[in-house]
Each structure stands twice: as C-alpha cells, then as structure tokens.
C-alpha cells in the first residue's frame, strides 16, 4: 500500500480536456493510475484517453465512485474547482496550479479542514508512487529518478526534487511515495500533516524532506519527531542556506523576514529532534545509507 494514491484509487481529472490535462492524464494512466473520468464545463460527451468527460464534478460523481480529484485548472479557477470537488464528497485533491491567489489558498485550506479532506498543492508537481500511480506531472520515464523503493519523499520544489531524488536512487534506494507540497507560502497540506501517513506506511523505511528557507514547515516536522509522532529516520535537504535576508529566492514561500524562516533555524530544529541534514544533494544518499538498515539494499 502506498500513501495517498494507489492503483485502486479512483481518480477524477478536473480540467481534463486542456493541453496539460490531457497530456498528463495519458501519463498517469500509463503509470497505472485508475483515472475514471474527467471534468471540463461545456465538454460533456467528449472522451480523453477513452475516459468520459462531464460538465461538472457533481455530474461525474453521479456516474462514478471517485476517491481523488486531480486538478489541471488555471490558478484563478482553482479555488472553485477545489470547493467543487470537496462539495461532491471527494476527500483527496491535488492541484498543480502555480499562482493561486494567497487569500484563495487560505480559503481552500479552511474548506479542506472543514471537510476533513487533504488538498495537496498548488505550485507542485503532485504525488507519485513510482511504478504504481501518479497524481500530477512527474517525468516518471526517467528511471534514475523515479524508481520504486523504501524512501518517502516530501518536497517544496520541482526541479530540485528530480536532483535530490536522483541522488537517492544513485545511492541504491528507491522512492515509496513522493509528495510535492508545493512552493507557495500557504500550501494546502503541510509536511507535518503527511508524516503520520509515512509513519503508518509499511513500504516507507525513512523519509527525505526537501525544504527551503521561509515558513515553518520544517520546524513543524521537527516538532512531530520530538513528540515521537514520527519515529522513522529522517534526512533533510534545505535550499537557501546562504540566501540573503529579505530577498525572495524563487518560490513565494522562500523568504526570510525578521530573522524567521532561515535555513539555520530549521537545521537546528531538525537536528535537535534527531533528524539528519544534508548540506549538498549528494549527501542525502550518504546519510540514508547510515540510517536505513541494509542501506541501499
């Protein structure tokens, strides 16, 4: 059993007829994902990858049981699409949209908490369980990055994830489930909220987090470790150690302000809680070998 998405997860793709939507729907299916249908208002009756398209989520869930919604919807329509999925009883939602307005992201998270759902994203590549299923857009065809294994990965980045995961694989490991929480200041789901899933997941022996400056998500992970809510080995790689204060390095969430959110404070918190912190991507594999039994098989 993987976390969040597996081969039996019934997936509805919102925005399925768009360029991104149809392209990645094909790849999700290729990897084994159980896409049952899609939604694009005005396109009911069409088919994408032989899956039926509906005008609305409500109309889709009348015809199909749906466990998860995968959104390929532009940022300014994302809140509406998420609320639509939640209102139809879907409790797992992934959105890749980059540029969701901050206040709408807060409302999405409020709605998600209200419905006791999990909304992952935006500004992420999504979720992948290599070799099994995918909600998002990963280059799953690059084997030296997306190989199945025992390491859970949580990340705030895109390209950097490929970089780090390649190092994980190069060290002889593979990935159980990779969750991109996204680079926005208010992600729908935070690292610490995913840890219980990794804790329970039998496939996962250790977790790698790919964090960066800004925010407090890494500190929350440390708290979970300190309170023994998460007890598996954890290795972190954090970008932006040398970033100057007050400049936004890339992601909107990646900013130090008033001394808060510096990588140094994150490292201290994680190490105090028993985690290991790699200073370079290549160190991630080395540290994993230290902490995982029979490291890299």
């Amino acid at each position, binding site marked *: 059993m993987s976390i969040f998405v597996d081969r039996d997860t019934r997936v509805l793709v919102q925005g399925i007829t768009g360029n991104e939507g149809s392209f990645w729907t094909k790849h999700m299916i290729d990897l084994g994902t159980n896409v049952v249908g899609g939604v694009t208002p005005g396109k009911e009756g069409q088919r994408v990858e032989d899956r039926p398209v509906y005008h609305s989520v409500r109309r889709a869930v009348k015809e199909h049981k749906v466990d998860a919604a995968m959104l390929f919807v532009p*940022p*300014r329509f994302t809140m509406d699409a998420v609320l639509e999925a939640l209102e139809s009883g879907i409790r797992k939602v992934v959105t890749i949209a*980059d*540029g*969701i*307005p*901050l*206040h709408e992201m*807060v*409302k999405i*998270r*409020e*709605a998600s*908490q209200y419905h006791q759902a999990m909304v992952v994203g935006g500004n992420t590549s999504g979720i992948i369980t290599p070799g099994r299923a995918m909600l998002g*857009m*990963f*280059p799953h*065809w*690059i084997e030296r990055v997306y190989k199945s294994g025992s390491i859970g990965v949580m*990340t*705030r*980045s*895109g*390209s*950097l*994830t*490929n*970089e780090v995961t*390649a190092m994980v694989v190069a060290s002889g490991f593979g990935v159980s489930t990779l969750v991109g929480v996204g*680079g926005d*200041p*208010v*992600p729908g789901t*935070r690292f610490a909220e995913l840890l219980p899933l990794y804790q329970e997941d039998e496939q996962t022996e250790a977790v790698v987090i790919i964090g*960066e*400056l800004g*925010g*407090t998500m890494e500190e*929350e992970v440390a708290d979970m470790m300190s309170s023994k809510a998460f007890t598996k080995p954890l290795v972190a790689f954090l*970008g*932006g*150690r*040398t*970033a100057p204060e*007050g*400049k936004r*390095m*890339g*992601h*909107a*969430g*990646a900013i130090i*302000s*008033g*001394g*808060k959110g510096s990588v140094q404070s994150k490292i201290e918190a994680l190490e105090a809680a028993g985690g290991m912190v790699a*200073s*370079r*991507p*290549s160190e991630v594999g080395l540290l994993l070998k230290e902490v995982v039994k029979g490291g890299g098989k």
Partner: protein
Amino acid sequence: MRLFEYQAKEIFREEGIVTPEGILTSSAEETAAAADALGYPCVLKSQVLMGGRGKKGLIPFIQERKKALSEASRLFEGQWAVPRILVEEAVDIERELYLSISVDPERAKGIILVSAQGGVEIESLAQDDASKIHTEYFSLTSGLQSFQITDLSYRITIDAQLVKQFRSIVKALYVIFTRYDAELVEINPLFITKQGALVAGDGKLMIDENSMERQKRFVRTREFYESDMEFEAAQAGIPYLQFDGDISLMCAGAGLTTTVYDLINYEGGRVANYLEFGGPNYRKAYEAMELCLRNDSKVILIVTFGTIARADIMAQGIVDAAKALKPDRPIVTCIRGTGEAEAVKILREAGLEPLFDTEEAVKAAVRLSKEIG
C-alpha cells in the same frame, strides 16, 4: 509586491485612516516648498522599499528651510538615490502602537497583530516579550467579525475614548487587506497623539504576487526594482536577482537555482545574478543569456532538470543564443531531464561539453571564474 509608504497611506486615507498631513516631492526645491507649506518642524520620509530607513538616515527631522534643502539634496543625490520624498508634518506623539493584518499559513487564518509598543519591528518584539503582542485569528471564508475587533480593542491598554477610533482603524485595515489581496498591511508606528487621536505614522502594504492580475491599480514601474536589470527581467517575465559576483546563473526551478546559489557559495565562488530559466521560460534562452551577458560576470552556469521544460529544447535554445550573442565568457552546462539524450547531442555538436552532476558543474564554474579572475 510591496508598495511605497505614500501609496499605502493614500489607500489608508481612502478608507478613513488618518495620516499626518504630507506632500510628495521629487526635487530639493519641491521639498523645501512643501516643508514651508506644512510648517516646521517636519519630517522628510525617503520613499524607498528597504527597511530600517531611520537607522540609515533616510528620515531626517527638519527644523528649518535651509536644512530641508540640504537634507533633500543629500537624499535625492546621495548613495540611496531616493526617487521621492514624502514631506510630513511632525506629530505630537504620546505613544506608539503596532498594528498589522496578515496570514498565518499553518492555521490557514487571517491574523491581526497588535502591540501597545510600536515603532520597533514586531519580530524583535516577539523575541523580547511575546506577551506584549496580542493576536486575533479570523476566517477568510466567513470574515473578521466585529466582536473580535471589540475584544481585541480591550486587550491593549488604551484610553476609553480611543477604543472607537481603534476599532474603525482595524475595520479599515481589514477592508484593505481583503480588497487588495494583501499579504501584509501594517501600521507601525500607529501614533497616539497628545491630542488623543490615532494617526498612521507609517504604512506598509504588500500585495500578493499571485493576485496582481486582478489588482490592476498597482503597476510595477522601474522604481520598484533595485536595478535596471531586475526591472527588465521582470518585464520579460524572468525571475531575476542582481548580485555582484562572477558567476551568472541560468538555472531551472526555484529550488534548484537556490541550491546552485548555495553550492557556489560553499565552493568559494560568488554569484553575479540569480536567473530562472525553466518552467514558463524554458524557451527564453536568448533573453536569459542576454541578461547574463550584461553582467560583469566571468562564467555562465546553466543547470536544469526538467520535466515539461524539455532538455533538448533548452539545449537548442542555448546553442542558438550562443550563436547569436557570441558570449565572451565560458558556459558550463548541466542539462538533464526529459529529452536529455538529444540535448547532449545538440550541446556536443555545438562544442558545449555537457556535465551531468550539479555539484561537479558548480565546481567547474567556480574554478573557471577564478582562473579568469
């Protein structure tokens, strides 16, 4: 997008928040005339976006015309090259408060912060004595409720006759927060004057970048950027930060670019510019390389690991750009991801020997930057 103080205060006034009388100027003469009109003493407030203006001498207190002229000249023509000065009347201050509205990402709530001690940075206050900061969370779905403002107004110790004013200001700030998709709206200090009025001594308003499309009111002109290059890159939609080192970055992905930035520093190299060549920009090799070349850098380092941003297209773009721009400095490439086999072929054909390991590429770039040094 952070607004200038004078812009924030303009919006404050529209919503009924009182600010000191002020006049915006852009020359020393105008400044002196404004000071005359407002009377002495007055304050010259440099309209720049950096923090700590007071400590940097960017907010001189002015007693007479001569000083207004000389100080204004210093500000306009000195090292900070201040674009505008907001000349403001001096206010008889009894006390200073702190007040802001922003978002708490973890709770996913709006958050109001108030402190009976203003004028200092809220973060340092939080470290000194968190009990001095009063917080109030609110839902962005159902909105801030009056009773929350009422309760908050009785948590800070202010005179009874100020409570009503304080409530109005919080309400106005909330309207601004929601109407303008603010990340942060802050009044620090919020003056309590000797006459018993609440007056916004400063104004900080940061608009959410992801909402700029619908916040048509705010246009990013040159003065919002620290350099011409940053402004031009922004116009071209390319994330760009100016530094003053030797290595120009042209990397894909915010996280990876930041990591390369770190690795260069570890290796003792110095970054000339941060530039994101990836995501929506992966076909903009020409524009990106041109920006890099305008820097006084010694090496261009290209690191990517793309999915949709196909390696072969990026490689072809780089080769084409190099042909057109004829770079006067070496280019180190480390281009991976979708289509990387094809990319390798393209780069090799053009005589750009590709590397495959980021750390190796960084080392190569740093070495080159020092050799050329």
